[in-house]
């Protein structure tokens, strides 16, 4: 005997809408749980996406050459630059020197990272110099100008045009004028970085023709795996990292955030599913006699099971559909209206991935249906005689 789905749906629909308050409360819990999955994960995706973009745009190239182990600098920079310029898909490159120092102003001092770069090369390779919040960028010939990262400037109460004293690790001390203030969104960078032209760093550190790192920009960042061995061979370097390796910490960070957001979403979803299960279970308990009558009329166990599973499905369809819409609209709102993260002082926006939409739909609906399975089994196993006569 097959199950007449039309009759099952007819009864489920009537039964579920009988108590509108309960229906609204339960549906609302599914709506919020579904929207929660989309919004929280969309915000995490947005935050992580921004972090990766920021890192790639300001701190690393598609490929990055580091000194060999136990070496501080890459030597023979000039020859390496010539070889890089000859490679077909190398769009730009930027050598940088990293050193330590102490920046002081008006009696305040902060240990700083000195980042020396060639502004012309850097502009072609990264967007670091576009991240000025005030002032103007340095150029290659500047001898007395520096850029200061935003939080370092705050800590030392520095503004554009102020003079600050920089003590290099070599013992050299020199006064520089703050030409611009930079904010990248990277907490480490923004906390303690002084940017100066490469030539000026060479002069003060007493070195030449070397770099702490060479950032390489390819015409297509997906070609890094092809170019990495080629560059290692052509430039005779051993320590080359791709942008994926460089942003591995972001992936780890992302995974830990995703785990956290999954737990938060999961708890909401389980709470919604439990409420669906409880409501249907209580309904089954209260309706034992009616279930018995339905069976006496000629319905079989499968029909009764279908009726109560359909109730869960109706909750699921309505709740998940509205939850998807709410989640989608919320994500679009946060995409259009990013909010300022007080810790990193960066704007966080959400990102809508269609995949997220499918996951939220499938997971929410499946969990809601699962919640209805036990009460539906319980209903299908009601014994007619016991149910009708309450024995």
């Amino acid at each position: 005997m097959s199950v007449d789905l039309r009759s099952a749906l007819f009864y489920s629909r009537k039964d579920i809408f009988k108590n509108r308050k309960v229906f609204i409360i339960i549906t609302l819990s599914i709506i919020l749980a579904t929207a929660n999955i989309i919004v929280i994960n969309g915000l995490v995706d947005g935050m992580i996406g921004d972090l990766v973009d920021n890192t790639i745009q300001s701190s690393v190239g598609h490929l990055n050459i580091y000194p060999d182990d136990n070496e501080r600098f890459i030597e023979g920079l000039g020859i390496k630059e010539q070889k890089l310029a000859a490679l077909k898909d190398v769009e730009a490159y930027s050598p940088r020197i990293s050193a330590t120092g102490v920046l002081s102003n008006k009696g305040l001092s902060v240990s700083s990272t000195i980042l020396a770069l060639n502004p012309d090369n850097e502009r072609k390779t990264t967007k670091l110099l576009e991240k000025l919040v005030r002032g103007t960028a340095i150029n290659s010939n500047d001898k007395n100008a520096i850029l200061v990262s935003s939080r370092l400037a705050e800590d030392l109460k520095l503004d554009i045009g102020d003079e600050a004293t920089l003590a290099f690790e070599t013992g050299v001390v020199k006064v520089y004028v703050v030409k611009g203030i930079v904010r990248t969104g990277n907490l480490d960078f923004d906390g303690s970085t002084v940017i100066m032209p490469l030539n000026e760093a060479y002069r003060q550190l007493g070195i030449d023709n070397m770099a702490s790192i060479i950032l390489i920009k390819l015409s297509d960042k997906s070609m890094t795996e092809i170019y990495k061995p080629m560059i290692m061979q052509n430039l005779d370097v051993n320590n080359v990292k791709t942008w994926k390796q460089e942003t591995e910490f972001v992936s780890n960070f992302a995974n830990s955030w995703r785990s956290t957001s999954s737990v938060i979403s999961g708890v909401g979803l389980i709470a919604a599913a439990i409420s669906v299960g409880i409501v249907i279970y209580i309904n089954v308990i209260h309706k034992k006699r009616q279930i018995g009558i339905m069976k006496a009329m000629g319905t079989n166990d499968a029909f009764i099971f279908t009726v109560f599973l359909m109730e869960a499905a109706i909750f699921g369809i309505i709740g998940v559909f509205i939850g998807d819409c709410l989640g989608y609209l919320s994500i679009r709102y946060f995409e259009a209206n990013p909010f300022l993260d007080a810790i990193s002082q960066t704007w966080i926006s959400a990102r809508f991935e269609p995949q997220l939409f499918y996951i939220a739909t499938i997971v929410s609906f499946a969990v809601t249906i699962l919640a209805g399975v036990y009460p539906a089994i319980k209903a299908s196993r009601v014994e007619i005689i016991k149910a009708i006569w309450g024995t």
Partner: protein
Amino acid sequence: MEIIKTNNLKKSYMLGKVEVKALNGVDTSIEQGEFVAIMGPSGCGKSTFLNLTGMLDIPTSGEIYIEGNDVTNMNSNKRAEYRLKYIGFIFQFFNLFNELTVMENVMFPMMLNKRPNYKERAKELLDLVGLGDRLNHLPSEISGGQQQRVTIARSLGNDPKILLADEPTGNLDTKSSIEIIELFRKLNREQGQTIVMVTHSPEIGGMADRIIHFRDGTIGN
């Protein structure tokens, strides 16, 4: 023609550790178109007999024949199908679906049986039981007697060959009880409906064609 026949029908169940013999070898035969009342004291096995002939329960031993077909050992799906197509039930407690209107309550078994024109048929049946003006009322909005009439209309939806009624007037006042029994008589006379009714009341039982007396799980004299 014999529509219900039982041979040495027995039903026992355990009450704690004690075996209770609800039916102890019932042989009976009911003809098509008969209006039979089953009477007897409480606990004599009247309702158990009705449950077994209505295929709501399985006998411990013995045989049940409906229209000559042995239905004793049918599986639960087959029994459900048989109930849907051949048997109409009326219980003491009206047992309507509270979330459905009067009309929907009557329609529902016909929908289950995929009967065409079930809406028209439901209206006809509600007219027949005198509730043609209460179609869209909920069960809670009509009286007990009216609810029982809806139950009767519902039980007739699939034109069952047998109508089984367990104390159909047990919860009604005298006036409503007489109305219900008159309705049974009308169905029996005009439509040739076979009706098997369990009752305590000699007055109600006396309105049937034949009375079968039960005593201690068997048919008495």
